[in-house]
């Protein structure tokens, strides 16, 4: 789960990471009221779950109430790389002597947390990574040992931070690691980590990704959803425990397992079709999950035909067949379905479907044939 900047900063504050104080706002008036409370100059910041807001005009400094009103009006409703801005974060503007970059991330390759620090933070860190990778100091942490004070100092020296802030920057890294571990994050990134003219260290940005699988241990974090960024169909799918991503085409797709569903999209596209969605019904899909999945797929009015591509391992094809029959009773689909069932209990599943003789349901034996058929039916 990706957090908005201000949600990340609230987590930071809980662990003693210094952040500017601020207020969220959902309208121009709320933004001006927040700015009045915080004082000027203040930063008006678009809250969307994507980086690069600054470069695209989503972050502005206001010197007075009138500017706060102007900036809030311009940024609210703005489109930033496909995401609409529904929320702002107003915070005191900081004076900046240096902009550093710091992060803690799950390094899948090394199978350990990786802490990174660079003195060349700010809005072009990707370019730095590409052109001058040595400018980013990196350290893998043994999670059984944890991040020690000397690790922080080592990174600070290696990155070449100003001598007078080696210790506080090291301490900042230790706190970010503490956020990473205790909130069970998979990413904690601060860009920029600033040094003020008074030589204070502060996190000016926060990008935090939490592990969905551990939210049961963090009920307060589980509430931090960004509902405005979710497509209503995606939310419906999420509430029913399905993984659904809306796409632009007219062929509804359901499969079990992300890999097979992605492969199905590739094959349907290869056959000349346009998928309307990605829907992974997950391992062990039971009949009621299939009913929900059909409802979610058909809630998209563009769908003209549906492909079920199931290769059962933990999923049992007879369960899928029963779910489809139930779904037809409840939803009464008006579009054709192509169904391919292979794997665990596939014979039973196909027999159940043959006996039910549902209207507009075609069965195919292979993925290629099923894709060709659904493309033909979708027209």
């Amino acid at each position, binding site marked *: 789960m990706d957090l908005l900047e201000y949600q990340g900063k609230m987590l930071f504050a809980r662990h003693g990471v210094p952040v500017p104080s601020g207020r969220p706002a959902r309208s121009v008036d709320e933004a001006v009221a927040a700015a009045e409370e915080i004082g000027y100059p203040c930063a008006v910041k678009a809250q969307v779950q994507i980086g690069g807001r600054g470069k695209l005009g989503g972050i502005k400094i206001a010197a007075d109430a009138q500017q706060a009103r102007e900036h809030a009006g311009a940024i609210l409703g703005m489109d930033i790389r496909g995401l609409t801005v529904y929320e702002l974060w107003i915070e005191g503007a900081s004076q900046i002597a240096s902009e550093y970059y710091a992060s803690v991330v799950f390094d899948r390759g090394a199978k350990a947390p990786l802490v990174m620090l660079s003195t060349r933070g700010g809005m072009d860190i990707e370019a730095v990574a590409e052109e001058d990778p040595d400018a980013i100091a990196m350290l893998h942490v043994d999670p059984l040992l944890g991040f020690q004070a000397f690790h922080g100092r080592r990174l600070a020296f290696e990155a070449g931070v100003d001598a007078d802030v080696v210790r506080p920057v090291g301490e900042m890294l230790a706190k970010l690691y503490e956020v990473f571990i205790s909130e069970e994050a998979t990413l904690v990134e601060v860009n920029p980590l600033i040094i003020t003219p008074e030589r204070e260290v502060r996190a000016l940005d926060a990008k935090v990704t939490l592990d969905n699988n551990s939210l049961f241990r963090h009920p307060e974090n589980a509430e931090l959803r960004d509902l405005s960024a979710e497509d209503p169909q995606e939310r419906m799918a999420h509430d029913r425990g399905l993984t659904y991503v809306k796409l632009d085409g007219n062929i509804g797709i359901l499969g079990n397992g992300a890999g097979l569903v992605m492969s199905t999209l590739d094959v349907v596209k290869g056959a000349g079709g346009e998928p309307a969605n990605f829907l992974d019904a997950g391992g*062990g899909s039971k009949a009621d999950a299939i009913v929900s999945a059909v409802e979610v797929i058909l809630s998209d009015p563009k769908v003209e035909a549906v492909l079920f591509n199931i290769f059962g391992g933990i999923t049992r094809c007879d369960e899928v067949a029963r779910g489809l029959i139930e779904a037809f009773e409840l939803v009464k689909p008006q579009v054709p379905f192509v169904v391919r069932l292979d794997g665990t209990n596939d014979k039973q599943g196909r027999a159940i479907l043959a006996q039910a003789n549902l209207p507009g349901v075609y069965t195919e034996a292979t993925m290629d044939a099923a894709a060709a058929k659904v493309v033909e039916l979708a027209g």
Partner: protein
Amino acid sequence: MSILVDQSTRLVTTGITGSEGTFHTLRNRDYGTQVVAGVTPGKGGQNVDGIPVFNTIAEAVDKQGANTAMIFVPPRFAADSILEAEEAGIELIIAITEGIPAHDELRAFQIISKNGRARLIGPNCPGVLSPGKANVGIIPAAFFKQGNVGVVSRSGTLTYQVGNELAQQGFGNSSIVGIGGDPVPGTDFIDVLTLFEADPETELIVMCGEIGGDAEERAADFIAAHVTKPVVAYIAGFTAPPGKQMGHAGAIVSGSHGTAAAKAAALEAKGVDVGRTPTEVAQLAMSKLGTPAN
């Protein structure tokens, strides 16, 4: 030969009394896997269709000589079960459970690799099948027969799909290994490529990846340097919409954006053929090995 599981496998299932645990353990046994025990704390002394149930994994090792564990317990208890298996001296731990917290996985992996006694496959994986010998996990074994193609995959269902395309062309498999798609897989492509390279029965390796991470890119480098057998790859997700990138850290670490195109390019640059569909993978296999004898 084959890798990881075979006739010498003596399996204990943790979470055997759950409905999924029971269903798949019995299927594994029907296939011919030696299932010697189950573990559910508090249910020691019972049995599941004749399979003795113990309270601890240590007992299953002591009394039944279990050497392989299949983890079927719910996500929040799974890391504990993995570590219990490791401490009991189990050599091969195959974790089927999906949805284990990432930090639990990380800790379990670190402890296992530090102690160096056990190998972990998964979590969130379909298991390992050595056709004609043993099946540990949820792979629908009826589709596969013994042969010379080794398969390794990040995605469960995609494994079955690709394996099935190979079977339709007449190919059999030495072993099929699902390594799982979690952030910290216990065993990765490189580990399994190493095992297949050393396995005399395996003559061709099929590797199935998907978008995200950089495991395929790292495997490409490894293949170029250390694998002499032909490798055919498949990557799912060519048409997946570009995922939104949150921070910059992911790209800085991997130097790649994890797209299917980037992965295919990395593999092809090292001389690995990449099929664009599962069917094409089987065709590429045929062009490398010729039409299978039967």
